[in-house]
Structures are given as C-alpha cells and as structure tokens.
C-alpha cells in the first residue's frame, strides 16, 4: 500500500521510529481478512441481524495505524460493502426492518469513523508535541535533568528540628527521572542508567545551594537560579549555572526540571578579561610613574645624597687631628637611616609597578590613603600643590587589591595636580575619606582647578578620552573599571571655575581588620 511507502520516507527523513506508530503491514492483513469474513457472512448467510455493524471493528483497527487516510479507506470500504450486500440481498424496492438495520450499521460505521478520526487528530497533536519536546530534550546543548520531588512535598510538615539533617534527609527523597544527552556529556557519564531512579543528586555539590533551592520550592516559587559547582563522574567539578523550575503547587505531577549550563568557558572568558584589565592597569601605572619620574628621581636622590654627604662628612670628622667620634656616630646613624629610607622608596615604587595578580585583601583606609599620598607627595610639592588630608578615624576596612586601589587614588591626585598646573590661583588638593551610611566608604579627591567643561563630563570616563595633549585617556576609564570590579562606583562633580571632586564609593568589608 502507498501508506507504507510514505511511512518509510518519514522514517528515513531522520525521525526515529516510535512505538506510537505500528507498522501498517501487520494491520492490513487482519483488517482485510476480517472485512472479507464480515462481507461473506453478510452476503451469504441468512442471519437476521446487523452483521455490518461488525465493520466498526475494522474501522477501529484501521485507527490504530494513526493515519487518517487508512481510517477513511476502511470506513469507505465498509460502507460500500454494507450497501452492496444490502442491495444484493434485499434490493432497493422493499423498505423494511433490514433497511433499518442497514442504516444502523452505516450510522455505527460512520460514527466509529468520526470518533477514530477525532481520536487520531488528538493523538497526532499529542504525538507531534511529544516529539517536539523529546527533540528539545535530546538535542539541546543545555543539560536537562528531570527529577521527581513529590516525596519531598509529602515529607515536609511540622517544624523541623535540625535543619541540616532535614535538608540531607529530604535530599535523599529525590528521584532522578531522566537526564538528557547533553547533561550526560557534561557529567562525563556514558549512560543515564546508573543514576535514573536514584537520589544521586549530583547537581548540588554544596548542601547550601540545595537548601536554598529547597526553600524556594517550599515557598512555592516558580523557579530558582544558582551558580554551582557540579560533580563530574571522574570526581572533578564543573562551574555551572542552574535554572530550576518547579511545578505549580496544584500540579499533581511533581516533576522538577533542572537546566544546566556549563559556565567553564564563560568563567575562562571572565578570567581572560580580568587578566587583560590587569595588564592594562599595569600599563597605566607604568605610564603614571613615567609622568612622575622627575619627582621620583628627586625622591630617591635625597636619601642617596644624604648618605654620600654624611659619609664624606663623617670621614672628615674622623680625619681631624682630634677625631670627633660623636659627629662620626651621628653621620653613620644618618647613613643607615637614609639607606633604609632609599630602599623603602624603591620598594614602594616597585610594588606599584609590579605585575602581580589581583589579590583581594582587607585594607585599612587610612593606610591606603597614606600609601597613595606617599607616591605623589613629592610631585605635588614640585608643582606647588598644597595637599590637605582628612581621613575620618575608625573607618571600617575595605576588601580589595591594594595596588589597584592605590592606582585610583594616585591617578586622581596626579590628574588634579595637572588640572591646576596652569593656574596662579591657590592650588589645593584635598583627599578625604569618611563613612557613607552603614556599609560604604567614600573617598573624595577634590581640587581647586578650573573644573571640567560640561560637554566633557559625560565622556570623561570613556576610554581614550582626554583633554591633555600628551594624555592617553585611559586613566579614568581604568579607575572606573577598577572601582566597579571592587563593587564600588567612581563619580565626578565639577563646577567650572571652582574645581572638581572625584568621589569613590567602595563597600566596606564585612569582616573588620583583625
């Protein structure tokens, strides 16, 4: 029959054969034999009854093929055979009880046909829908786990005594229903068989995340999202983003779907981005030090000169006719102290330009401000900027990278001093730190410079935006990125003719400095 041919085409087009579509060959033989038997009985035997009603069985059998055409053919053949048998046996002239019987038979066949067709339509839609979702499940690159949480809902009740124990117990009640291929690949399992039906809740490596998910489920939330490490078959972990959807409360089907996205690549990209930012920040620091090189040379030279001159003076005291040992001692003491000072200056500068990985640590705000000031103090003094420091006492600690935060402050202070370089008006720079609400620290760097043109303000933090001829325009962009990487903000307020203030807001660390 032509139907079997189309079926073959359909299968070869890529869809997997499914148990919902039985092979037609198996049906046509019994259906054909049954039709023949009914027809022969109807036409050859003198039974007084609606034998043709039995064609209903043939129509029902045809319905099992799942194809409308088969049902239509079966019903059509049945109706034709019934009418032929009636005409052959009774003729059309006489109207009587056989006529009534034949109408009953025809009606039954027709009704059966309509019902079968309706059923087929519904089943077909269901089948298509099922296939579609199956395809999503199987072909998706997102890992999907289907779990049965019904046992949890019935197990929760009353006030739990020990939360941890409860969470562990409830976790054991979960049953994995299905796992899609993408998920298996992600987990490194060859087959889902070993985990289906178990409580092997491999997704929640940490109890904490499971507990949070459980809370969301019991609250009646529709979904819950979390970033978690999931355990692979080989014991390694994998960073993943979990999106967990819960069935509505009134849904008796307790299936929970967990969508899992492997975030390894994203995390690698984030790391690469952080590395690139660090490189850029390092380049900017080096450039800043380049701008400060004259003051740095001076700063290093001062102790060196003191060392050399003290040594020479000491020798002269020693070579006198009557050596003055007290003076010699003073000279040597100064040599030692100044030698140390020189090495500290060098260490401070070295640490500022060192290419070190980002290191988040607890930082004291006053020390941070002080260290930054030390790097620019000499420069400020050269360009005759008067520095005013106001760090409120008892500030909470910050959590951050010391060098990167120093870089922000150094950059802002150097910018401010450059902004004031051309003016004869007093050059004042004020660096202040105080608390902003309960959990934030505010550090402001303000100058008495000419201010920033209003049209420049919106672009101030854009990369490569600069108002200076020799500027690269990366400084403020890096400062803002760094502030944001520390969970903070960098803003600017400027009043033309009065000055500019940069405001750095940073979250206070939760733990106080030890």
């Amino acid at each position, binding site marked *: 029959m032509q139907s079997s041919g189309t079926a073959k085409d359909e299968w070869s087009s890529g869809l997997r054969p499914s148990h919902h579509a039985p092979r037609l060959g198996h049906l046509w033989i019994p259906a054909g034999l049954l039709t023949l038997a009914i027809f022969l009985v109807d036409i050859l035997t003198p039974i007084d009854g609606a034998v043709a009603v039995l064609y209903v069985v043939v129509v029902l059998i045809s319905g099992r093929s799942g194809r409308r055409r088969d049902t239509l053919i079966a019903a059509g053949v049945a109706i034709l055979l019934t009418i032929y048998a009636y005409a052959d046996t009774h003729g059309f002239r006489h109207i009587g009880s056989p006529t009534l019987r034949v109408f009953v038979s025809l009606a039954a066949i027709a009704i059966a046909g309509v019902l079968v067709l309706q059923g087929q339509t519904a089943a077909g839609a269901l089948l298509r829908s099922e296939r579609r979702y199956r395809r999503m499940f199987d072909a998706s690159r997102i890992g999907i786990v289907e779990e049965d949480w019904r046992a949890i809902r019935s197990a929760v009740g009353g006030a739990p005594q020990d939360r941890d124990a409860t969470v562990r117990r409830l976790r054991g009640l979960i049953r994995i229903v299905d796992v899609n291929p993408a998920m298996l690949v992600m987990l490194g399992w060859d087959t889902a068989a070993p985990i289906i039906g178990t409580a092997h809740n491999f997704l929640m490596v940490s109890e904490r995340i499971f507990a949070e998910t459980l809370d969301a489920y019991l609250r009646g939330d529709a979904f819950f999202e979390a970033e978690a490490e999931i355990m692979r078959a080989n014991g390694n972990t994998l960073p993943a983003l979990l999106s967990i959807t819960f069935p509505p409360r009134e849904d008796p089907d307790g299936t929970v779907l967990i969508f899992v996205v492997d975030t390894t690549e994203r995390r690698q990209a984030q790391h690469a981005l952080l590395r690139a930012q660090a490189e850029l920040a390092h380049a900017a620091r080096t450039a800043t030090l380049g701008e400060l090189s*004259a003051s740095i*040379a*001076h700063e290093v*030279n*001062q*102790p*060196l*000169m*003191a*060392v*050399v*001159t*003290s040594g*020479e*003076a*000491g020798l*002269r*005291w020693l070579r*006198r006719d009557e050596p*003055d040992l*007290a*003076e010699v001692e*003073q*000279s040597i003491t*100064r040599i030692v*102290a*100044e030698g140390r*000072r020189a090495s500290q200056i060098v260490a401070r500068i070295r640490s500022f330009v060192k290419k070190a990985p980002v290191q988040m640590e607890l930082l004291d705000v006053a020390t941070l401000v002080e260290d930054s000031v030390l790097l620019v103090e000499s420069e400020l*003094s*050269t360009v*005759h900027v008067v520095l005013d420091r106001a760090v409120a006492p008892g500030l909470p600690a910050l959590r951050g990278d010391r060098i990167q935060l120093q870089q922000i402050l150094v950059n802002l202070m150097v910018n401010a001093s450059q902004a004031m370089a051309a003016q004869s008006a007093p050059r004042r720079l004020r660096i202040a730190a105080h608390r902003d609400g309960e959990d934030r620290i505010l550090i402001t760097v303000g100058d008495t410079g000419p201010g920033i043109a209003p049209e420049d303000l919106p672009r101030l933090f854009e990369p490569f935006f600069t108002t200076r001829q020799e500027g690269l325009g990366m400084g403020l962009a890096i400062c803002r990125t760094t502030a944001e990487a520390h969970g903070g903000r960098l803003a600017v307020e400027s009043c033309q003719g009065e000055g500019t203030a940069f405001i750095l807001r940073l979250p206070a660390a939760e733990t106080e400095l030890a």
Partner: protein
Amino acid sequence: MMPSGKSGATPAKPTPEAMIIIVDDDAAVRESLDSLFRSVGFATRLHAAPAELLAAPLPDLPGCIILDVRLPGISGLDLQGELARSGIALPIIFMTGHGDIPMSVRAMKAGAVDFLAKPFRDQDMLDAASVAITRDRQRRRETQAVDGLRARYETLTAREREVMVHVVDGLMNKQVAGRLGLSEITVKIHRGNAMRKMLARSLAELVRQAETLGLPRP
C-alpha cells in the same frame, strides 16, 4: 650669630669667619650638609623652607646660600629672584636632583655661583662654597667702601656739597663762585673742607668718589 648644631664641634672659633645658609626641605639632606660644613670649620644655619630664610635676619658675616632647586611652595630659581629683589646679595649655590641644562643656565645667568647635581663630591661643594664666600667677602668690602664714602659725604654741609658738585664737574673756583653768588675765597674754604671730610688727596680722587656715589651733575 651662633652656628646651629653642636657648638663644641667648631673648636677655637668664637666668631666664625663665614656663615653657610642651607635651605632644603629634607631634614637628612640639611643635616648631612650641616655636618660637612662644620667638619671644615664653617658656621651654618639651616632652613627647611624659603619662607624661613626670608623671615630670619641675615648674619653680618660673609657667606653663601645653598639652595635646592625644588623647594616646597616656591622653586629655588624663583627664590633667587625674590632674594635679589629684597636686596639680599648672598651668593647662591644650587643643588638639584635632576639638573637640566636650561635650568642651570638660568640660575647661573641670575648670578648663581655653582649648580651641583645631587649627590655631589664633598670637595666640589666645599670648593663652590669657598668661591662663593670669597666673592661675598669681596662684595662686602666694596659695599663697605661705598658705605664709608657715603657716610663721609653725609657729613658735608649743603653748601660744601654744592661746591663739590661744581668742582668735580670741572669748574674753576672763580666760575663756581660766579654760579653760586659767593666770593672766590669762600668757595676755596668750602672746597678745602669737602676734600678734607671726604679724605680726598687730590681733585682726581674727589671726582672718582663723586662717580662712586653717583652724584648728580649740576
């Protein structure tokens, strides 16, 4: 004025011959220079800031100022100008951490004795200081000479000055008498008094003195 630092460090010199004024914002630099100069017998005075130097009275001694080019509040070069304007003529030796040529040229043109890059050899600094002190001593002597002359000139009466002006202009006694409406004998007496008071041994010397004093022509 007593030298700063340990007074016992400069033995056998109750009144120092010269005073070195050191201006640097860095205490260690100041102290090491102080020690160096005292070790060879100079008196020193230390200042951390230019303002201190300008505020303190200057010693009546030959000396020099040792100045860092880069100072808080004002640059060493600007301070040099400031000192010149306030009539402080002490020679200046500049020190710098990063001596660039234009800066040293500017300093030398403005009358600096030397321009030393830190760290320098002690002998270079001491040599520069002795050059500066010699120069200052010379200048002081010249100033003192002019000062003496001026003091002597102050003792002349108005008439004697009048006569002196005309005489050094080359007029004869008679001509002077005619101009001033005096008798020739009176002019002679005034002229004699002026030359005596000015300690001028000849008319030529009186003329030189008038030039030194910058007396106006009649």
